[in-house]
Every structure is written in C-alpha cells, then in structure tokens.
C-alpha cells in the first residue's frame, strides 16, 4: 500500500498542484506546510501576469479543493525532520508544531483574534499591516484554523491573559498542546518549498529600511491588493499619501556577482512583475508618473513583449535603460532622488520620486541546505535544488524517488504557469516511477 502514498513538502502553488494531480489519480497525499496555511507566495500577490487575473481568485479554489480532498492529508505548521529509506519505501518523521488550537474543534469564526489584546506585524503583509497574536494569516487561509504565536502571547510570556480561550465558543484553544511527531511511510516525495526574497539591506546605497518610501516589489503587491493592509490603496509609508511619481529599480540582488551577494543569475520574473505592477498602478491612478530603470528588459514568453510595448504606448510608462547605484532622501520632504544615464543624450541626470520599488531577486529558502541534508539531495552553488539532468529529467533530484517543482528548482523556472507545469510533470514522474517499483 505504501507505494500509493506520497509526501509533498511545501504548500505553494507548485505543491498544491502536485497534490491535486496525485490525489485525483488515487494516491494518498501528505502535504507538509511549514506555515499555518497553504498558499505560498501566490496568495500574497494582487493580480497575476500573464492574464492579469486576481491571484487569489485562481488560487483559493485549488486551496479549498486540497483542504477537502479525501486523498489529501494536510499537515500545516509542520516540518520534515527525518527521511530514511529509498524509492518505494521512505520512512518520514514530521514534526507538527503546536498551534495551541485544536484543529478538529476550531470553526474559524475569528472571535479569538478579535478579542486578543496583542498586535504584531503581519508577515503575510510583509509586516506592513498588523495581526493579532492568535491569528489566521489571511482571510482565505486553509485550513481555516487559528494559530497562537507563542513568542508574542501574553500567557506564554507573562503568564496572564487567556482571553481567547474565554471567548472561543468551540472550546478549541488548548494552551497545553504539545509538539507531535508523525511517522509516515511513503513511496515518493516532491519538494516544492519555493523561494525567499533577497534582502536589499545588503545593498546599503539603496537605503532600504533607512528610507521609509523605498519598498520591495513584494511589499508593493500587498499595498496594491484589495485584501492587503491598506485595502488596495497605494500609499507612501512615510505619510500615508498617494505617491504621484514612482520608480522601479530592476535586478536588485539579481545578476550581482559581488562576493557578499553572489547571485550571478537572472531571477527571470522581475521584469515581468515590474511591468505588471506598473500597469496596475496606472490603473489605480492614470496620472501617476512611472519610470522603470532596467539593465535588459527580459520579457520573454508568450505575449510579454507585446505587454511591454503596451505599457509604453498605451499606459505611458517610461523605460530607462540605466541601473541606478544609489537613492538619496530629502530629510524634510522624504522625496527620493535617483541618478541615471539619459538614454538619448547619454548624459547623467537625476529625477525625484515619491516612492521607489526595488525589484529584488528571488533566492533559495533560508533553510534549503538543511532540508537538502535531511532528504539527502544535492543543491547547486546557490542552494537551489539540483536536477541530475537539466535537459531530460528537469524535475528529478539527485535521489531516485525524490522530485522537485516550482521555484525551489531555481530561476530556470519562474512564474506560476511554469510552476504548475512542473508540478504536473513531477506528479506524472511519481506515477511512472511508483508503477515501476510496484511491478518489480
């Protein structure tokens, strides 16, 4: 029977798609997700290229299907601790962290969060908005179950409170919940742990964190999103006013070979998301003055060059081929000055903006080396997971029976359609490999 069960690590769009493909083929799927909800990065996006559909509108039905599928067992707020065995017979130890809320009792009504007195920055909103200490990371979270963040909880830190417990009608809050170790027996594994964003503090002249109105593209996604911390209003963090002039700086931490950064690669999607976000801003405010500073506009893929052309011609977005070296802030007005090379005159000029968006590189998850060690798979020199044969087995890893899909395979992949394609490919590879193992 174990040949019919699989483990998927990471519940982003790639992990969700792979889970659904395999579950629909009759496999028993265990989906292990580190955070309280599945959804990954796609849940944080506003609209998605290439179709400009609302990201959540495409993702949420898939998340719900995963949550309800009889063949999918969700293990959220959990981590893989140990993997032994080989293809056809892996023994896996999963650590289920205590949420201090009984998943089988919680109805997701949210009264606990409403009553909890402690507010902390919400990671899901890139810390631009606040959440309570007992929380659901976002409205459409799956499972719809609250989680207590122990580090900020009054009861755990100061020994008094228990307000959430008093108000919970379902009696789901359980401060005595213990970590649980679950042992699984699976035939094959898919890794789909996605990516982290490059921290632009590593490039001090851009002033990220020093200047309030220098933000990252992921932060911009949250500011543009109707369910985000500002309800979809694009505002300057410094004064809460709408920015009239906005600059995008491309390749922040991508194609950067300096020793302390060491990302020679092109992240492969930032040009596309920058043009998307610029168009979205124009749709919010057609008078906004937008300039995209780029090195090369890498708008490959069906319809993207045309999209860039439209962004220039129809939306009047400026494209300037110059890679700025620094941002300076006027201490009084908080406006931001960027020096660049004018493309026509080839002379150095400066322009001043209300808001600057850094299009930061996509980098491996912080713990990718550790996870690779647990699984026994190899990584490349950037710490993305490695395929043994990029041409003919692109979703394999260096261990038979362990596959990978989505951005954790590195920038050769890129966007959501690619991640979905790879997820289906990895699911198909599992069906093929396990059929073979069963035959033997």
């Amino acid at each position, binding site marked *: 029977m174990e040949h019919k069960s699989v483990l998927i690590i990471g519940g982003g769009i790639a992990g969700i798609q792979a889970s659904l493909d395999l579950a629909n083929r009759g496999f028993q799927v265990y989906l292990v997700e580190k955070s309280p909800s599945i959804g990954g990065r796609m849940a944080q996006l506003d609209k998605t290229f290439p179709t400009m559909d609302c990201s959540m509108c495409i993702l949420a039905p898939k998340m719900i299907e995963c949550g309800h599928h009889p063949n999918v067992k969700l293990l959220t707020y959990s981590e893989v601790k140990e993997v032994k065995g080989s293809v056809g017979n892996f023994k896996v130890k999963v650590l289920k962290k205590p949420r201090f809320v009984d998943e089988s009792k919680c109805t997701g009504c949210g009264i606990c969060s409403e009553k909890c007195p402690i507010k902390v920055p919400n990671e899901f909103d890139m810390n631009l908005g606040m959440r309570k200490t007992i929380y659901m990371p976002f409205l459409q979270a799956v499972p719809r179950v609250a989680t207590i963040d122990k580090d900020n909880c009054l009861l755990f830190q100061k020994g008094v409170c228990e307000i959430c417990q008093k108000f919970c009608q379902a009696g789901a809050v359980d401060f005595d919940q213990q970590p649980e170790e679950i042992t699984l027996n699976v035939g094959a594994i898919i890794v789909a742990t996605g990516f982290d964003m490059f921290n632009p503090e590593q490039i001090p002249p851009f002033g990220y964190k020093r200047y309030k109105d220098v933000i990252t593209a992921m932060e911009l996604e949250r500011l543009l999103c109707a369910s985000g911390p500002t309800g979809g209003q694009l505002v300057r963090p410094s004064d809460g006013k709408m920015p009239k002039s906005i600059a995008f700086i491309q390749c922040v931490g991508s194609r950067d*070979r300096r020793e302390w950064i060491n990302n020679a690669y092109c992240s492969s999607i930032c040009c596309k998301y920058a043009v998307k976000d610029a168009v979205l801003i124009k749709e919010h405010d057609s008078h906004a003055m937008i300039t995209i500073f780029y090195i090369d506009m890498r708008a490959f893929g069906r319809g993207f060059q045309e999209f860039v052309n439209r962004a220039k011609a129809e939306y009047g977005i400026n494209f300037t081929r110059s*890679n*700025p070296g620094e941002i300076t802030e006027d201490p009084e007005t908080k406006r931001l000055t960027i020096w*660049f090379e004018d493309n026509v005159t080839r002379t*150095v000029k400066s322009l001043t903006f209300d808001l600057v968006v850094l299009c930061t590189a996509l980098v491996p998850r912080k713990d990718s080396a550790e996870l690779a060690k647990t699984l026994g798979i190899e990584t490349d020199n950037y710490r993305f997971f490695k395929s043994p044969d990029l041409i003919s087995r692109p979703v394999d890893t260096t261990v038979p029976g362990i596959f990978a899909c989505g951005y954790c395979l590195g920038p050769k992949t890129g966007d959501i359609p690619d991640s979905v394609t790879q997820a289906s490919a990895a699911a198909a590879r599992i069906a093929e490999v396990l059929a073979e193992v069963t035959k033997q």
Partner: protein
Amino acid sequence: MDEAKVGAFPARARADFMHEVANTPRGRGVLLCIQCGRCTNSCPVARTTDEYNPRKLVETVILGLRKEVLLGNLPRYCLSCFTCLDRCPQGGDIGEVMFAIRNLAAKEGNVPEGIIVQAKNLFETGRVVTPTRMALIQRERYGLSKDISIGIDEAQKILKKTSFVELISKKV
C-alpha cells in the same frame, strides 16, 4: 566616437582591443561589464561633466576603438574614488581598469605634461614630490636623515629596468 553607431562598425575597430586591456595588469574588469551604467550614474565626475562617462568608455573599449581610447584624455578624468568599484554588480573593478588604460596610453606615448614633470622628478630625485623645508624639519624631529638623496641609485636602476625612462621620453 560617432562612428560607433549600430550597423556602421568603423573600419578602424580592433576586436582584440578589449582583450589587450583585459590582459594589462588591473584591466580584467572590462570582460565582466554588462553595460548596466551603474558606474556612470554613481561617478562623481560624470555628474559634473558630460564629457566623462565610464560606462561609455568601457563600451568604446569593447567596440575596439583603440585609437579613440588610447590617444584621448578620458581615462584621466577618473578620480580613483572607487565608488564604481564598490557598486558595479559584476565586480568589474572599473576604477582599476582606468589604470590599465592609462598605462596602455602611456605606452603609446600619450602622457600628459604634468605627469612627465612628476616622472622626471621621480627619476632625478627618487621622489615624485620634493620635500619642503617644513617636512625636512619634521624628519629631523623624528630622528630621520635630512639627506634625501639616499637610494636614488637603486631607484634609477629599477626605473631603467622597467623601461620607465623610455616611457616618459616618448611623446604623442
């Protein structure tokens, strides 16, 4: 450099010039340049004069316009502040490349008058700058010799062996 237009590759372009610069000590950075322009917009000189543009100078090297680069005066606009070296995302060390270009230019006899004066000083006195009276008093205070002609022979030997003398006696 008007001839360096797309499609009109000038007859005097030398494809190997980029490698000539790269193979000169400190010149390796040209091979890394992706023409992003960050050096130019970070450069304090380029912000004050339109004549100087480090990215464009590297472009001229890549295009192989040897004569324009080596007989011109542009590499000497560089202040060696090394802001570009700090910021170039390719680790292109463009401030260093300027030294390589200056040295190649010197080989072609392109050395400015002021440098020739300093170089002659170096050969004749063993120093680029002759110590002032104050400096000599200071030396004495620290217990150093007031005789500043010590070591001229050795210095001259080195300068002759490294063909420094030949270099400074050449003129454009």
